[in-house]
């Protein structure tokens, strides 16, 4: 008879900084004789049918490192003793799981096999990073569609901003391999590939104190571990949708997930996944329906036209153990995301609105060297080589041809994308013949040619491609039971190609900027060394990282030099009175987005010009981070974490005008920032049917500008002396400065035999439930005058109202024939809260004031005062006040222009998404 090891409140696991890279953990324990509690030496410890083998030392202790994250099988044998086997040993990324064993001599009846927790992971002094973990179980239990949804539940996260940093200041680590969209992460997201949750065994968000192993990040690291194939074939097929809902409940969601993993032959393990996600209302808004009865959205506000997204992700992974010490892994992941983008100007001629396509690929090879099982100074080595590619294009598209839901099943083609890929900036100075001229449309309910466009698209054509070949070597040397040394390096050869043209139906000249293009090959390099030591309850971590960056090629007839930086990191921790205190200081650096090295042309909506000069001499952006943390295990078994931090950002990219023309601005490392905050996290892991996690963050994030395209204009000319006066470096709240954020996550489950019984079945038996509640204080904004070119009050001196929402997921296991499965109901924004996420800056409200509407309408009428005859499609009787068959004159036309102005300025994207409900069915095999 065997008994399960009670893992309890994760007392068996405690954290140290990652052993090899962040894709593995470890296992330690002590074997004692069950009859007398004496340590037993020489016991064979085998994991996963002998993939990892070691023996206990004279103290009965054993230690295994470099175990892939996931669930494993432990076998404990010694002649003369009854062998023991345990399934379900969970190893977590960067942690040692403890599994003590009491062996019963053959002559003695087996006693319980139970774990003896020695070290609480919450209290481990070697856990100096500020880390929040997401397990595969949580990804399954919580209402999340992708990893980004799960990351958004962590303390300190506002969209892609981590702890007040700009978007794009984070890096991804996938199975120990660094990934970053170095081209334009700050504007277009960190990575083009999407990692399906079904492929993930664990993830963590590290917002401070991250190891010297990590570069290319100053705000955080998202570390993801994917699963290896199992010893038997298993998989999951799922389909979820909201199509059965009527009216506004149907946003055209369809998702299919197919995942399988298992053995190929005796040794190879494989994983494959296909994740298809379509949504007709790809960017839904909870904006109130229009009140004008003539507006078609007044009765049917959803979905918005030309607003769909379709994402195709496919991945595969092969694990090949070449020997007991050498393991190889091959991984490939590809994502294509196509979107038809809603443009309010093309609301009534939606087929002229733009579209975009992003293609991402990642292929990695990993060779892992494991030390001999009896090694006293084990050396782990990881050699990784990977190629990633991201291609993005946006511009004019043909009308969508949907095959099923939001899926077209075809590649979205952008008009003249071949011209963009040729990067021809000479011939494209002329008006491109394929581009028509957009005109004012009379297809709106108002019939007047105002605000809404038709006839042709807006003339934008943007394309870029970023590819990288990276080699990464990491090593871990165990110098004893309490000292580990980490070292390694990386080198990446990158390639950047860009092309941008706006208003392509017009020739360059006047206010029409020239096309921009770039083609260069930057390189990145990095090296690090870090040591971690523990002496009793004291832990020390010290690391040093070198980063190098070279733009590559010749840009703007400038001789470019490589630049480099050193980033030291130190942390000290100790356990005092049952609490662990950690103090850390670290410098973190990242190269700037490569998009800032080259010229940029863009459609200006912020009145800051349409052109920026690239600067190939940009240097590193950096931050100094100081943090004090306290972690306490509460008597109830829950954990309490308190983090207080201060970040000083420097060298952030901003736009600095060279003269008074905003189009003369150039990117430079001009901005600074200061972020201070405190986090409190209370967590009760799931046991006895429920678990909870409550986090609260108070934070203040300030800088001079919120993104690189914002004009940094701190220099003034004295009107009297005409001297140039650099102003003091005054900082303002950033656009993503959220002062207060509260998140509560509650999970629960009913046992298979729990709940009421109805007609012989228990409808709630096995039901899993989770709910996520959020409250966040409002983000800042700047009030302007009606024209939008003068500030009214301080920069970001006003605040949006706070936001709150509740998400929920219910999952009920089912059985269909011989297959297990489940039905689930996923509800986002359960209360259908209308959260205001933006504002009109001239009013501070979602709506324009009557003066603005009148001004817009009058200007439009004066530009087109022409009558509308009866036979015109734009005519309607209610506007023909004198019934003469013609809508003419200001008395009849101006009201129509007013209604058109109200329609055009309706606050669609000032509000967040509405309630989204999806039903799912899954089969597990």
């Amino acid at each position, binding site marked *: 008879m065997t008994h399960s090891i009670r893992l309890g409140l994760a007392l068996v696991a405690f954290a140290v900084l990652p052993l090899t890279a962040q894709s593995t953990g470890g296992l330690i324990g002590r074997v004692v004789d069950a009859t007398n509690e004496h340590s037993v030496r020489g016991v064979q410890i085998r994991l996963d049918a002998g993939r990892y083998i070691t023996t206990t030392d004279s103290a009965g202790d054993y230690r295994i490192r470099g175990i892939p994250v996931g669930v494993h099988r432990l076998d404990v044998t010694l002649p003369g003793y009854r062998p023991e086997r345990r399934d379900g040993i969970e190893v977590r990324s960067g942690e040692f799981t403890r599994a003590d064993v009491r062996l019963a001599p053959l002559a003695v009846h087996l006693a319980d096999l139970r774990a003896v927790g020695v070290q609480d992971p919450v209290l481990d002094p070697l856990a100096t990073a500020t880390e929040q973990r997401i397990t595969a179980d949580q990804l399954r239990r919580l209402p999340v569609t992708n990893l980004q949804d799960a990351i958004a539940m962590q303390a300190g996260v506002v969209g892609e901003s981590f702890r007040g940093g700009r978007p794009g200041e984070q890096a991804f680590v996938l199975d120990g391999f660094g990934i970053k969209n170095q081209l334009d992460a700050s504007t277009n997201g960190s990575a083009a590939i999407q990692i399906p949750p079904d492929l993930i065994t664990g993830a963590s968000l590290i917002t401070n104190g991250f190891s010297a192993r990590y570069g290319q990040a100053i705000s955080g690291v998202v570390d993801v571990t994917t699963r290896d194939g199992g010893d038997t074939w298993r998989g999951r097929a799922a389909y979820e949708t909201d199509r059965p809902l009527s009216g506004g409940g149907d946003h055209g969601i369809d998702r299919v997930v197919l995942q399988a993993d298992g053995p190929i032959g005796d040794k190879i393990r494989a994983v494959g996944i296909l994740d298809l996600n379509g949504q007709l209302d790809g960017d839904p808004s909870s904006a109130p329906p229009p009140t004008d009865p*003539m507006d*078609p959205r007044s009765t*049917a506000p959803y979905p918005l*036209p030309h607003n769909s997204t379709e994402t195709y992700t496919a991945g595969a992974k092969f694990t090949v153990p070449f020997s007991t010490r050498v393991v190889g892994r091959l991984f490939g992941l590809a994502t294509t995301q196509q979107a038809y983008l809603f443009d309010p100007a093309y*609301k*009534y*001629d*939606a087929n002229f609105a733009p579209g975009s396509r992003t293609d991402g690929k990642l292929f990695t090879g990993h060779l892992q060297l494991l030390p001999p099982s009896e090694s006293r100074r084990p050396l782990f080595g990881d050699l990784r080589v990977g190629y990633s590619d991201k291609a993005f294009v946006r511009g004019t598209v043909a009308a969508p041809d949907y095959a099923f839901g939001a899926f077209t099943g075809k590649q979205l083609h952008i008009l003249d994308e071949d011209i963009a890929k040729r990067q021809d900036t000479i011939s494209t100075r002329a*008006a491109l*013949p394929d*581009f*028509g*001229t957009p*005109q004012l449309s009379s*297809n*709106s*309910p108002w*019939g007047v040619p105002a605000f809404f466009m038709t*006839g*042709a698209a807006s003339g934008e054509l943007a394309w870029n491609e970023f590819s990288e070949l990276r080699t990464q070597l990491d090593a871990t040397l165990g110098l004893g039971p309490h000292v580990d040394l980490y070292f390694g390096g990386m080198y990446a050869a990158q390639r950047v190609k860009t092309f941008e043209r706006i208003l392509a*139906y017009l020739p360059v000249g006047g206010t029409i900027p020239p096309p921009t293009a770039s083609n260069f090959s930057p390189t990145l390099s990095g090296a690090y060394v870090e040591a971690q030591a523990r002496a009793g309850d004291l832990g020390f971590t010290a690391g040093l990282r070198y980063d190098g960056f070279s733009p590559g090629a010749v840009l703007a007839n400038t001789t470019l030099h490589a630049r480099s930086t050193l980033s030291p990191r130190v942390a000290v921790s100790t356990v005092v009175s049952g609490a662990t205190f950690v103090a850390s200081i670290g410098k973190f650096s990242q190269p700037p987005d490569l998009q800032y090295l080259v010229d940029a042309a863009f459609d200006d909506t912020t009145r800051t010009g349409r052109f920026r000069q690239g600067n190939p001499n940009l240097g590193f952006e950096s931050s100094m981070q100081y943090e004090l943390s306290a972690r306490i295990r509460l008597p109830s078994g829950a954990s309490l974490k308190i983090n207080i931090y201060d970040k000083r950002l420097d060298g952030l990219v901003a736009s600095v005008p060279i003269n008074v023309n905003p189009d003369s601005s150039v990117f430079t490392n001009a901005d600074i920032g200061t972020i201070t905050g405190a986090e409190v996290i209370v967590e009760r892991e799931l046991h006895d049917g429920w678990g909870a996690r409550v986090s609260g963050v108070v934070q203040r994030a300030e800088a001079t500008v919120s993104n690189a395209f914002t004009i940094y204009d701190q220099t003034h000319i004295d009107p009297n002396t005409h001297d140039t006066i650099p102003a003091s470096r005054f900082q303002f709240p950033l656009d993503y400065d959220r002062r207060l954020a509260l998140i509560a996550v509650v999970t629960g489950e009913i046992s298979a035999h729990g709940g009421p019984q109805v007609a012989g079945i228990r409808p709630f038996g096995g039901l899993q439930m989770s709910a996520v509640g959020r409250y966040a204080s409002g983000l800042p904004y700047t009030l302007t005058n009606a024209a939008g070119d003068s500030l009214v009050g301080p920069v970001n001196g006003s605040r949006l109202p706070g936001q709150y929402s509740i998400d929920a997921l219910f999952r009920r296991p089912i059985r269909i024939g011989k297959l297990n499965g489940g039905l689930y109901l996923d509800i986002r924004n359960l209360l259908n809260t209308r959260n205001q996420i933006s504002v009109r800056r001239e009013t501070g409200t979602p709506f324009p004031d009557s003066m603005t509407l009148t001004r817009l309408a009058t200007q439009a009428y004066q530009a*087109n*005062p*022409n*009558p509308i*005859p*009866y*036979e*015109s*499609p*734009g*005519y*309607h*009787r209610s506007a023909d006040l004198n019934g*003469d*068959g*013609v809508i*003419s004159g200001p008395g009849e036309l101006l009201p129509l222009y007013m209604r058109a102005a109200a329609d055009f300025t309706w606050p669609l994207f000032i509000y967040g998404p509405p309630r989204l409900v999806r039903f799912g069915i899954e089969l597990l095999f």
Partner: protein
Amino acid sequence: MSGWTGSVAMLLLLACGHSDAFLTPNPPLGPLTSGADEQLTFNTEQDYWPAWTEDGAGILYAFVRPGAVPQHRCVGLLPAGGGSRIWQLCDDRATQRDSTNGFIAYALGADGRLLYVEAVAQSGVQGTAPAETTLWLTDSAAPFHRRALLTIPGFAGTTPVSWLADIAWTGPNTFIALAQDFTVFGHCKNCIIDDSLFFGEAVVRGTIGAAGATLEAVTGTTGATSYSLAENGASIVFTRRDDLNLYKVASGGGAESVVATLSQQLLGVSCEESTCVVADDPVTLSAATLGDPPVIFGSIGLGPRELSSVSLSSGTVQSMIVLGSSAAIPIVATPRISPVTGDVVAQVGGGFGHLQTFSVSGSDLHLYQHLVP
């Protein structure tokens, strides 16, 4: 779906768009007025040159959009009984921003095939003829995916042709049209405004082949300024400028004969079997030497502006619709009899001829219901 076939039904589908409600936010309207004289259009600019579709389910016509720059001449399609325009074609392509484009003749087949003549003139330059005039064959669903059949000026045999008007399908690959010649005259010696004046050349028959279209003048129709097929296609009835006679010739050509003589200038004829409707108005053309070069100008006098019926068998002329006789009453021109119902659509108001550039009074289309039994 009686009365609605092929082309118009297809265009209705096009007009209705697809599931996106925003493409046609306003439901199409029926006729505004009713009665014997129903006004179909209310444009403050010119609406003119009406033509029934081959199946009689709709009315094509040319119009100028108020305030449009440049002032392209568009072609639109109205339902047979009037109401909202259900289809239109304007050449607003980016390459045409520096020119004025006009659809001067058009024919829509029951299967959606569209024949049209587009004239392109440089914008803002007075006194010049269109730089390009082309006869195109296309489909109404994609009117700019087209095939050029013929460019003019050209010849129909030995007959010079610089303008085509009143085109109509006569078979799958054949058509009939009015060939004209035009010149540009100064409105007066020192005027900056020029007039275009048309001289009828002949009725021409066209054949579409692999290499394009060829024209052949119908003998006996020299000088025709308007025409109509009659007697189930067996004959052609036509008018001439400054000629009060209504003529007839066999459809294959030959010697003309006078059907009837009216008392006023004939500004258009349309026939259905043996009954014709003519627009006759008190319009005179005269030549005067007010300077060098000489100019030709016309005037509208007092007298009934009317639609009259003419019997081809007896030559009897009968006044059917009289708009009025005073100077304030607009003229009526280009009547067209529906091939299905006997309704007559005509252009009321504005100037006359086939190239109007002024919009002082505007012209609209009117429908006279059941005028022809």
